[in-house]
């Protein structure tokens, strides 16, 4: 089976500004892929080319085996954008029902509303929803067509921690159901929890693609051992350090051993020191 997404040599220039500068990327079927990068790094441009909103200047792009510039692939793709307009005067049920008519293999609107946790709000006008509830409606509209591939653009911005956890569960359920998911996020924790692989994009180039655990040689990076009141050592042999400390202290007060977090690695990659 061909990959869900295949990109080779993607380029996009706005006037003299190179937004995407030779990106290669493969996303496998059934994978959850997170694209990370600072604002203005080319993340949105890349995703919107994959979604078919923007035209590329050069390179090959295949989404579910088709060129996303052709609208025919829309039947099988779901898109959850940021800041897309609601239909204030319509109810949640009406909007989801209406969008279900656009898709050949649409899911049952009632079931989808239930799935995103809006069952109680099905008869409420959309302008009465809270920010998080509106986002869930966005997701409902993204998955109503039973997409094989779902794009999520910063899906949990503005969520409280509980809503975020519920949302993550929804994503896992979708993945279990075989949906390929491409998400962009500013929450490194979210990428680490959900994604099979993450890609870091900066200055229009894809700097690294790996599993969250291995990104930027994270697993082989030196560990930081800290204890007492703020004393710490960075070492490649933490076990050795601890053994020596144990001989000194017996029980070591305030002992922690840490490796660089995904955030540390990420910030280092995009050129900030953590």
């Amino acid at each position: 089976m061909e990959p869900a997404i295949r990109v080779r040599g993607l380029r996009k220039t706005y006037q003299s500004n190179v937004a995407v500068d030779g990106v290669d990327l493969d996303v496998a079927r059934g994978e959850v892929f997170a694209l990370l990068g600072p604002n203005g790094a080319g993340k949105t441009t890349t995703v919107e080319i994959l979604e078919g909103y923007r035209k590329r200047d050069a390179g090959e792009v295949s989404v579910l085996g088709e060129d996303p510039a052709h609208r025919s692939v829309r039947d099988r793709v779901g898109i959850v954008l940021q800041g897309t307009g609601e239909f204030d005067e319509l109810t949640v049920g009406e909007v989801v029902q209406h969008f279900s008519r656009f898709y050949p293999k649409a899911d049952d609107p009632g079931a989808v509303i239930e799935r995103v946790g809006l069952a109680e709000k099905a008869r409420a006008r959309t302008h009465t929803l809270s920010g998080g509830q509106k986002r869930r409606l966005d997701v409902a509209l993204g998955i109503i067509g039973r997409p094989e591939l779902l794009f999520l653009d910063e899906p949990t911005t503005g969520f409280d921690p509980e809503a975020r956890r519920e949302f993550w569960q929804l994503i896992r359920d979708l993945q279990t159901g075989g949906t390929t998911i491409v998400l962009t996020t500013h929450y490194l924790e979210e990428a680490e929890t959900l994604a099979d692989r993450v890609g870091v994009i900066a200055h229009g180039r894809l700097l690294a693609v790996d599993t969250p655990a291995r990104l930027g040689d994270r697993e082989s990076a030196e560990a930081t051992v800290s204890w007492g009141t703020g004393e710490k050592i960075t070492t490649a042999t933490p076990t050795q350090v601890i053994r020596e400390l144990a001989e000194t202290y017996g029980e070591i007060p305030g002992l922690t051993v840490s490796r660089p977090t995904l955030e540390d690695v990420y910030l280092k990659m995009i050129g900030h020191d953590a």
Partner: protein
Amino acid sequence: MRLGLYQGVLEVKQFLRSREQVVFTLAFPVIMIIVFGSIFKGDIGPDVKFTQYFVTGMIGTGLMTAGFQSLAIQIPTERDRGVLKRFLGTPMPKWVYFAGKVLMVAFIAVLETVVLLTVATLFFGIDLPGTGAKWLTFLWVSALGITACTLCGVAFSSVARTGRSAPAVVTPVALVLQFISGVFFVFTSLPSWMQTVAGLFPLKWLCQGLRSVFLPESFGAQEPGGSFDLPMVAIVLGVWCVLALVLCLTTFKWTTKRDG
């Protein structure tokens, strides 16, 4: 086809549920006819009351507001809020969006005209067209006029760059056209250069066509060309339809500049 119909139902529902919009759209021409009908009580020709003239202007204005003004404001607002982008991201065929707007406009136009004519007949003694032929003219002139206005509205929706600036861009255009096209005043009482300018735009012709329906045949002699000149009404409105359609097809924007 069914999708277009559903889209129309959706648009009409949204319109009917926004109370301010319903009230203002329906009440404005009625208020205007009450104001003008109470101020100008005289005759403008043998057996022609000013209100009989004015009602044609108000029908024309109503059609223009429903078609041109509301779409030229509503579409940039929806573009700004990402409603268009959301539709674009679904398999919905693009024409469905426009079909929805057309059905909404048609619904509002019919509703508004019925309300206006009812009020005008009951309270101002307006004479409704007496023959089937006149009703037929009424039908085609209105249909062609609203089509031209709707297409112009969609075409003009690309002019305003943001939803917020749209009313400021659209309202003056609509207002000036109303003043120079003989909506509020008898057209031939306007300076001739103004008549010439108005003759380039559809509203003047729409109103002239409507006058042929509501005013006696004899009044035609007072029109600038010496008659109601219905063939010319059809030609000018038709040309505007084609022109606006070409503009719609070539310049319509689904996303904002910000979205690239």
